[in-house]
């Protein structure tokens, strides 16, 4: 397989991953699964970054961007999981639709 075909397959994979993440975000009510959707989206982004870096012959720049993104991603996941645990403590559920206590 030559490089152009490889890039084409990679782009297609990025689209599939982005759609999987978006589908998860749209469909799910489970707060943990929403985070999994964000994770899958970010995996697609990392693959897109590195693939485009390979395409233009600047893999190292793409790698530094990917490293930045991974750091941001792990902070987002840690903070969001903390929020989910606190919300679970307050409402006793991880259902997104039960996070409407402020209405009462």
């Amino acid at each position, binding site marked *: 397989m030559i490089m152009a075909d490889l890039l084409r397959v990679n782009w297609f*994979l990025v689209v599939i991953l982005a759609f999987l993440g978006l589908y998860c975000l749209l469909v799910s009510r489970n707060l943990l699964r929403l985070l999994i959707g964000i994770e899958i989206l970010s995996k697609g982004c990392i693959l897109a970054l590195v693939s485009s870096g390979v395409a233009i012959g600047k893999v190292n720049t793409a790698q530094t961007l990917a490293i930045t993104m991974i750091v941001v991603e792990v902070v987002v996941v840690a903070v969001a999981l903390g929020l989910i645990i606190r919300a679970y403590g307050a409402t006793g559920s991880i259902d997104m639709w039960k996070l409407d206590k402020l209405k009462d």
Partner: protein
Amino acid sequence: MSLYLLLLVALVLFSLLAVVFRNMLLAAISLGVASVALTLILFALSAPWAATFELSVCAGLITVLFVSAVSMIRKEELFLKEGRARFALLPFFFLLFGIGFWFFGDRFAVALRGMPTLGEQVGVGILLWSVRSHDLLGQLCIILAGVLAIKAFFGRGRD
């Protein structure tokens, strides 16, 4: 190259399983396996630094965080019943878009190939510490903000 395609299939398959599994523990573990597949893909694309970070942080730390969060939550809450029937048509729209992208998405790749390559390939260390040092400052700020947020969530006040 068939091994590479196998890795791509594994990445999509385990991401799909992470979305589909109703058991959250299995979903978290399949997300970790998808991260491992992405790591191997990044190695194959000759991006070892990003692959190492992906393996240690995404496949390791984030999976541990997910599993520990799952272990704190009652079992009946984890098997939350979600009404997904309303979204049954959504994958078909995605499929249509994907087929369209397969035929028309080449323009993106062509546009990328036409971009000029600016100068020599610089090492990752020089790029991180010299060229993109502002990124490091931003990363430090984000890590600090995350630590403070966790402290605000779980720290004990002096009341």
